[in-house]
């Protein structure tokens, strides 16, 4: 869920509660104030009426609420009356509305000029509570929606503005690739938290980059450093072999040591190759015509394929061009073809199909290989002592440098496929 929707969801619920609470309080306060006001008016009327009763006794004859909003009833003389004001509410039929309307009454007792007690009732029409409540409700609902809309709008604008640098940061982080050589740069932000986040990220990634680089450098340096001692050992053995004073057994043993060292040399060279590819040291690029290159390379492998009695065919279904380093393109094809020929039994066949954006190597085989691990370093499907276990890892590595897809599939045959973008 987006941050905007997430915050808005909580705000809408919270606002509803706040407004409801506030509405009930407001309603009670308003109602209280209305009654208070009406009661004050009734008290004032009482003073005016009793004063008038002294001057004009005819109003003492008002027995019913008519045009006047009061009535006077004589009380028998004698008992002690309560002269205090009593307020009450009630309903009365109103012609205008054709309905019972709420009224407020003031009931009190007073003596006229001659000391006769009278009961005075004054009434005042008051607002209908439910109507007030209804109006209030409508107003509040309108207010609520207005608030929600304006908050959503403000939320949208503010969040977009405030989080802008955050989204830029996110975008840059998504596009950041360790070891690509491009430094991660956090965007400038007016928000301190985001600025700090950016700074921390920059530092963490910088540290990672340093570790990554030094590790890659280490493999490369180690491989380099191994070359000289290997050269010395191999050359010394070669010298010994050339001195014709060895018997067969000694010569064979030395030759075996020499072969083992050669294996180490190949392993070392493959490791160096891998780290060079990953360190992007093959910068020069040119347009490679794969049809031509494949035919050159199959020519080179012809002797080997003939010797292994493997039938080698190429199907040029389309012209395949791609811009990359020529050495790497050659290595890619070499490793795939060598792999295919080596693992095909005598009498089998290797087929290369060149499509517009696809290169497929098919070779005979009985059992499928581990699809997920076939391109891993040092993964060997067979117990081949001479294999470095890096050939297909190099293929994978070259593929990923150029955003190609290297995949394996088994469908009666082993199928290795390179898909070009």
């Amino acid at each position, binding site marked *: 869920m987006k941050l905007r929707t997430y915050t808005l969801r909580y705000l809408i619920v919270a606002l509803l509660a706040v407004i409801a609470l506030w509405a009930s309080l407001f309603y009670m306060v308003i109602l209280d104030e209305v009654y208070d006001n009406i009661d004050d008016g009734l008290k004032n009327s009482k003073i005016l009426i009793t004063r008038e009763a002294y001057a004009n006794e005819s109003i003492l004859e008002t027995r019913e609420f008519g045009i006047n909003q009061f009535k006077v009833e004589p009380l028998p003389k004698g008992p002690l009356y309560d002269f205090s004001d009593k307020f009450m509410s009630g309903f009365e039929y109103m012609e205008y509305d054709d309905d019972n309307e709420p009224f407020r009454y003031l009931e009190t007792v007073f003596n006229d000029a001659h000391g006769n007690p009278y009961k005075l009732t004054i009434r005042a029409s008051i607002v209908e509570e439910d109507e007030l409540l209804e109006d209030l409700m409508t107003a509040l609902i309108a207010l609520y929606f207005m608030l929600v809309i304006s908050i959503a709008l403000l939320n949208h604008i503010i969040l977009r503005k405030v989080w802008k640098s955050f989204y830029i940061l996110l975008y840059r982080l998504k596009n950041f690739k360790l070891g690509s050589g491009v430094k991660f740069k956090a965007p400038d932000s007016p928000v301190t938290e985001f600025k700090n986040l950016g700074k921390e990220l920059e530092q963490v990634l910088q540290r990672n980059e340093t570790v990554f680089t030094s590790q890659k450098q280490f493999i490369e340096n180690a491989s*380099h*450093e191994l*070359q*000289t001692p*290997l*050269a*010395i050992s*191999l*050359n*010394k053995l*070669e*010298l010994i*072999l*050339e001195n*014709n004073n060895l018997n*067969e057994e000694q*010569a*064979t043993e*030395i*030759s075996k040591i*020499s*072969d083992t060292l*050669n294996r180490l*040399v*190949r392993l070392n*060279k493959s490791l*160096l190759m891998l780290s*060079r590819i990953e360190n992007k*040291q*093959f910068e*020069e690029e040119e347009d490679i015509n794969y049809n031509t290159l494949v035919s050159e390379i199959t020519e*080179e*492998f012809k*002797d*080997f394929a003939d*010797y*292994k009695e493997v039938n080698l065919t190429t199907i040029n279904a389309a012209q395949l061009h791609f811009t990359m380093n020529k*050495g790497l393109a050659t*290595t890619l094809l*070499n490793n795939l073809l*060598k792999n295919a020929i*080596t693992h095909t039994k005598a009498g089998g066949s290797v087929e290369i199909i060149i499509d517009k954006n696809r290169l497929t190597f098919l070779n005979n085989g009985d059992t499928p290989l581990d699809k997920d691990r076939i391109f891993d370093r040092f993964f060997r499907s067979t117990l*081949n*002592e*001479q*294999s470095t276990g890096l050939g297909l890892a190099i293929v994978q590595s070259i593929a990923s440098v150029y955003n190609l897809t290297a995949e394996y599939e088994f469908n009666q045959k082993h199928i290795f496929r390179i898909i070009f973008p």
Partner: protein
Amino acid sequence: MKILIIEDETNLRDTITQSLEKEKYIVETAHDYISGMDKIGGYDYDCILVDIMLPNGSGLSLVKELKDMKRRDAVIIISAKDAVDDKVKGLDLGADDYLAKPFHLAELHARIKSAVRRKSHNGNNAIEWSNIKILPEQREVFINENSITLNRKEYDVLYYFMINPNRLINKTALAESVWGDYTDQADNLDFVYSQIKNLRKKLKDNGADADIQSVYGIGYKMT
């Protein structure tokens, strides 16, 4: 023939020296940039082997120096750095060849001979051994002055033996030199054997006196 080796690694320098002296070369050595400069300034050589990473300076500067002096010495760079740009730079500066460490001594001999021969241009650049003659420029092979036809790889194998006659050639060295990257698997050594078998047959059928013989199953020697 006089050869100068400029290499800081004592052990490697000694091994190369030993191997070259066996071939009756006159070998001089230098262990760093300054002593290398001294030797170059003092004498002419038929071939100079120079390492790139040297104490006090780069081997590439030495190569450049030689070019500036318009010297005709053949120059082969030997380096632990098998980097393409170093190779290109070295060859651009006037080096005749580039050999990445580790290398086989037989390969080094072959490279030295090729470089010296290309540099000399004395008209007679044929390589002869027994009654076999090779014209490397034309890639032609003669036995008793009769031209014979070899396929590309057979020619490469024969060339390697002709340039290293009477020397034990390790199977791996031969495979790497002739088939390069295309062979490095176990059964390839038998593959080399089958290729040599074909070549031997052709040589024999055409009346060559020299023969390529297997030595203890570790390599071959042309005698």
